[in-house]
């Protein structure tokens, strides 16, 4: 008996023989070209509409804003990925009245118990998308995937210069097709559902809060 693969392809090739495929030109969607400020504003507005807290902060001030935000909440810890420029900024300046800084420095098999018990996580981002309002994340060995998913509060740092007009622009100008990471993510807000009577509620399985600091 032939394998499932062989049978499927035999069927497919037989179907192709029938021909009659008409393929129109693909064309392009209406373009979107915004100024730098417009991109920041649009991303901010759209993400705020989706219940994200967005702050536009100066490069020398973001750490203070972050600390202030953390002090306003009672959090049992802030988990982060060691080895990034973000980590290099956080580690030396951490203060005692802040929630303890916890490095994600083991594999999930060992770290799972702790990770599922920490209130907040912080990550960098690779960029943003103005058109739809979203962050781009490429988690990696230093900043694991679950940092932005398991803790109830996700804080993300976004460089204003990396906000693209559209998703297409982001992937084309960075040539994503030449090498995709293990996992690439777009995130547009805290997790949400409308599965009961279409009533929108935030904070289902992922973070209940998303806080974005746009460093301008």
């Amino acid at each position: 008996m032939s394998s499932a693969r062989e049978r499927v392809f035999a069927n497919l090739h037989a179907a192709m023989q029938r021909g009659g495929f008409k393929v129109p030109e693909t064309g392009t969607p209406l373009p979107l070209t915004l100024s730098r400020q417009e991109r920041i504003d649009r991303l901010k507005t759209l993400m705020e509409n989706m219940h994200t807290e967005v702050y536009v902060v100066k490069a020398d001030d973001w750490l203070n804003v972050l600390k202030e935000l953390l002090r306003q909440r009672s959090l049992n810890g802030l988990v982060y990925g060691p080895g990034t420029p973000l980590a290099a900024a956080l580690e030396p300046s951490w203060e005692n009245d802040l929630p303890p800084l916890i490095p994600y420095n083991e594999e999930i098999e060992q770290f799972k118990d702790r990770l599922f018990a920490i209130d907040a996580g912080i990550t960098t981002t690779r960029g943003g998308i103005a058109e739809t309002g979203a962050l781009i994340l490429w988690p990696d060995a230093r900043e694991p995937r679950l940092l932005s998913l398991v803790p109830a509060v996700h804080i993300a740092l976004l460089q204003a210069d990396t906000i693209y007009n559209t998703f297409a622009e982001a992937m084309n100008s960075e040539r994503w097709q030449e090498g995709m990471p293990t996992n690439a993510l777009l995130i547009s807000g805290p997790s949400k559902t409308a599965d009961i009577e279409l009533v929108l509620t935030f904070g289902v399985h992922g973070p209940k809060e998303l806080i974005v600091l746009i460093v301008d």
Partner: protein
Amino acid sequence: MTEQALVDFRANFAKALNDKQLRRNLTKAMDSLRLKRKAVFADKEALERLRSVGNAIRRRSLSKLPELLEKLEKKCTENGIQVHWAETKAEANQVFLDIIRRHQASRVIKGKSMVSEETHLNHFLEEQGVEVLETDLGEYIIQLDHETPSHIIVPAIHKNRDQIAHLFHEKIPDTPYTEVIEELNAIARKTLRQKFFAGEIGVSGVNFAVAETGTLCLVENEGNGRMCTTVPPVHIAIMGLEKVVEKLEDVPPLLRLLTGSATGQMITTYFNMITSPRKPGEKDGPREVHLVILDNGRSNILADPELRQTLQCIRCGACLNHCPVYTRLGGHAYGYVYPGPIGSILTPQLEGLQNAGTMAFASTLCGACAEVCPVKIPLTDILRLLRNKSYDTQDSPTAVEGHGYKKNVSEDLAWKGWTAMNTHPAFNTLSTRMLGLIGVHLPRVGPLKGWTSVRTAPKFAKKSLHQLAKERGLSDE
């Protein structure tokens, strides 16, 4: 071959139409989904341009389907994703079971996947003693009540908060009764967190699979999909073989169309692109990723130039939300996994016309579905084509299974009579005169009873238009 007894559409439809609660729940929800879609696609010109792009991308993908699937397999394999092929539902389910057994696992957590509904994966695995837990809130709700999805995007839309409140209170241990939606969500979050933590195998569907890079794309709002594809050590994704697209740049337009058409969102909370299992040095993500590619009749659908447009579908559910039949019946009455207009064109082709052909008749052909379809599938044309094929006994290489099942002598005779009546003037005059005289009594008996039992029977004029015109001295021209 069908796995279920023939669906009794008449009984199902009557039951659904008389269920006042269901009608209320559905009307409210569908009205809201339509308005949201309209708001997000307010710019008509932009939408039409986007739909043309979406249509072209999907047609291009289908025109190279075998080549793209080979490329996808090659790329995925290079990336470390293990690819499995399944011609039938049973083969697909067996692939899951083999992987689960190899890992001696018994706890499966699952993100939403309509293809896995198509293969009845949960039922199959549960019979083998494997615990399968749906984690999408809507899917979780219906699983608790041993139901199937009634909508391909919002699976529990037939239920309202009172019904869900009772369900949670009865089925989840130590759960107080509450009708507050936020509290119901919180209960689900708490219960499922433990399951994410302990899950051994994560299962997901696939919204788009990119051949160019071997990337699996998943669209979701809740985060349960990311949980299922990141926390457990093994991830198994399942897709219908039509889900492949050629290039990464094909993804953004389809994503816009999908989220906008489905729920009126610019973008979902998460767009999750998976290209490999955990690499050395990475601290989380599954160590194994498997991709199951299912045919289950799709390659046959590809053969017919008209019918193959069915495979362009990106499962957005807009055609359901805009369908006057679906919005009154809900999904369960259709009796098969895929309801509404897309279900009515897809199911008869997957299950055979002799089994599911009636679905092609569960439409008024109003055309709303084709008007909103983001990839421009001419749903009404396909419905009509399937209806024709139900009577077409001729065999051809692209014939749909069960074609000609409806052909019968009395209907043939009726249509022959109709033809005769309308082509021979003498017959025509006689029959219209007869109708004027006895027409009032006609529909109460015989096959027309079904129509008049719920509607006011038309009153036939005493004189036909033909007669009236003649009396006024109008000529025949």
